[in-house]
């Protein structure tokens, strides 16, 4: 059984994916019902629940057709590019929600792993079960998109400095 601290942690994870408090709660509740129904013993129940939450979230996104699956080219990646380069981005304090909403669902998962769990690129790749190159490409594109979008809208929504 998950205690209240576990539930809060899982809720924050669900929120980071959905970017909506109500949807985050619904996602957590649905995942919890599934976990209970499975009735299995696992060594790391919180990690297992996160997997259920993520899979459920991706299923929902596919159902709503809000995920665009892209092929990534790694050729234009700088050799020293890494998730830590996201640290260079400076944003206004009130921008977090808008940035999360702007990101693709799978990009939010990367942001969560990086910002909350403190994972490196390699650890994110292992967690997401993706090649490291794919994760790097995704981060690279995400950084470019963030920079473009929020620099352009800096008068209205804040700014990002590179």
């Amino acid at each position, binding site marked *: 059984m998950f205690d209240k601290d576990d539930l*809060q942690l899982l809720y924050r994870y669900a929120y980071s994916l959905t970017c909506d408090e109500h949807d985050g709660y619904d996602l957590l509740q649905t995942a919890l019902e599934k976990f209970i129904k499975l009735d299995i013993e696992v060594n790391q129940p919180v990690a297992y629940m996160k997997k259920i939450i993520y899979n459920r979230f991706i299923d929902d996104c596919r159902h709503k057709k809000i995920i665009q699956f892209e092929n990534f080219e790694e050729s234009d990646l700088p050799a020293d590019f890494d998730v830590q380069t996201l640290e260079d981005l400076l944003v206004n304090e009130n921008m977090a929600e808008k940035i999360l909403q702007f990101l693709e669902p799978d990009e939010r998962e990367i942001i969560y792993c990086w*910002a909350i769990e403190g994972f490196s690129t390699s650890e994110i790749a292992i967690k997401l079960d993706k090649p490291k190159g794919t994760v790097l490409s995704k981060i690279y594109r995400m950084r470019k998109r963030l920079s473009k979008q929020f620099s352009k809208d800096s008068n209205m929504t804040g700014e990002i400095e590179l």
Partner: protein
Amino acid sequence: MKKGNLKHIVREHIEEKSLSDNQLNSLMALQKKQNKKSIMQTRWVAVAAVLLLAVSNVFYFGSSSNLKLDQRIGSEVAKNHINLKPLEIQTSSIREIGQFLTELDFVPVESSLLKGSTKSLIGGRYCSIQGVTAAQLRLKDRKSGQIQSLYQTVYDEKKFPGLPLLKENQKPVTVYSKGLAVDIWVEKGILFALTHDINK
């Protein structure tokens, strides 16, 4: 407008989100409700298993009546121990096990033979001995790390005749089955069976 780096801003934003008390209570209640349901299902399965075992014993004992009772108990206990099925409750408190395994018609107790030993209780589950509902307690030796099973069930002299009684200064009988040794004795109105390595 104050600025910060992306990591810091995003982390602060996510970490300030929290479930309300109502939402938390609702999720906790959901878990409790499902847990009770699951326990009830487990109990029904256990009851069904005991009934099935009781029926099969009618046939089994007809053909194996030449086996001594202690050997039959030892064989059954060793088999169950090797299976090492998941615990229904994990705790170091025998009282909590007694409170959790409510279908038992006895209260699990500590044996005087295990007092002061290096064994720690780690949990328990339902099982049966010779068709009688029993508790399977799992122990771990703090020194060797060896996992042992301690079975307890109600002692009925008619059903379990001839087993050693501690109160009459009789020593536990040891039988061997499937590469394990099983000590069997009666104490405090409870039949005990404890598995251990033959090389103990």
